């Protein structure tokens, strides 16, 4: 925490006072971030990508995915992912965990999900598929992601 001076463009010019420093691990999100991101994604309208392409994301599907992620985060310690829209109206969840990059491409209507993981250091990788809207699929997602965080490998 501190006090900073900003210019007219809202750019930080100078830190006037520094009261406290907290180390924030890069890439670590919490449930509040998930809620904020969900609202951003819900606000995307048809043509969001370039005025022509960019399908709006299925609102109920987004809410369902958000609830699932929050549940899995609280119950299974699933890290909160970064979420991105795709131009065809799907949702891409991504995690950067150590040297691993993981992604889940989620069809917001059906819940069908493609999983992909790759180790930046070794190029080792793994992929798979499941349905996020099913208990078995959610279990598979947790296993896929947490195997990296707990063991450092898949």
């Amino acid at each position, binding site marked *: 925490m501190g006090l900073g001076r900003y210019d007219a463009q809202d750019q930080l010019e100078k830190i006037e006072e520094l009261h406290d420093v907290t180390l924030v691990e890069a890439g670590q999100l919490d449930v509040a971030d998930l809620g904020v991101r969900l609202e951003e994604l819900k606000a995307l309208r048809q043509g969001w990508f370039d005025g022509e392409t960019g399908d709006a994301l299925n609102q109920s599907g987004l809410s369902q995915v958000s609830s699932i992620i929050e549940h899995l985060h609280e119950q299974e310690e699933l890290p909160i992912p970064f979420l*991105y829209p795709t131009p065809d109206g799907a949702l891409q969840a991504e995690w950067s965990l150590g040297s691993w990059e993981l992604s889940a491409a989620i069809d917001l209507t059906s819940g069908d999900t493609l999983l992909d993981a790759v180790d930046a250091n070794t190029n080792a990788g793994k992929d798979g598929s499941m349905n996020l809207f099913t208990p078995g699929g959610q279990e598979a997602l947790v296993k896929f992601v947490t195997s990296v965080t707990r063991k450092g490998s898949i």
Partner: protein
Amino acid sequence: MEGTHPLTDGDELLHRQVHPSFLQQGRVGSQAFRPTTKDQGQLSVSRGAMATAAEAFILYTTELDLPSGGVWSVSVAECGAQDLPPIRTHCPPPSAIRLTPSSTSTAFPATARWNGRPNCWRSWRPLGAASIPRASAQQVRHRSPEERSSGLFRCMGDGVGGSEGRNSLPRFCSSPSR
């Protein structure tokens, strides 16, 4: 012909405009570096030899009036190392180029592996644009046609087009090639 004009300066940077929705808390998503269905497997970038990252950002957001959350860049050499040799498009003079897979590349773009290939994705690095003062954007916007045609932005002139005969102006460094 497309594919017959490879870029040879390995140090040249290739600039990619990243859609604001592909940024979350400063982290850029892999979607930013994946061709869309309209891209026909070729990712579009603008050439560092023709415009700096900041200039490319201004051009993109003011002249083309398209959204950009910033510029991420990669060098020609880094692309080549990933078996994605960049080639010039037909844009005369060439300032837009595309990354295209070589015949031996099996990971691009049919599979999602593109988004996870660490040495592709992670090679891209932010090159600013977030702090470009508004005055600069106005200055670029108000350059005379002569100025624009003689320098960095001459690719904006008539006849600039996608190599597949698409509409000209918006096709430069935007869809269908972003």
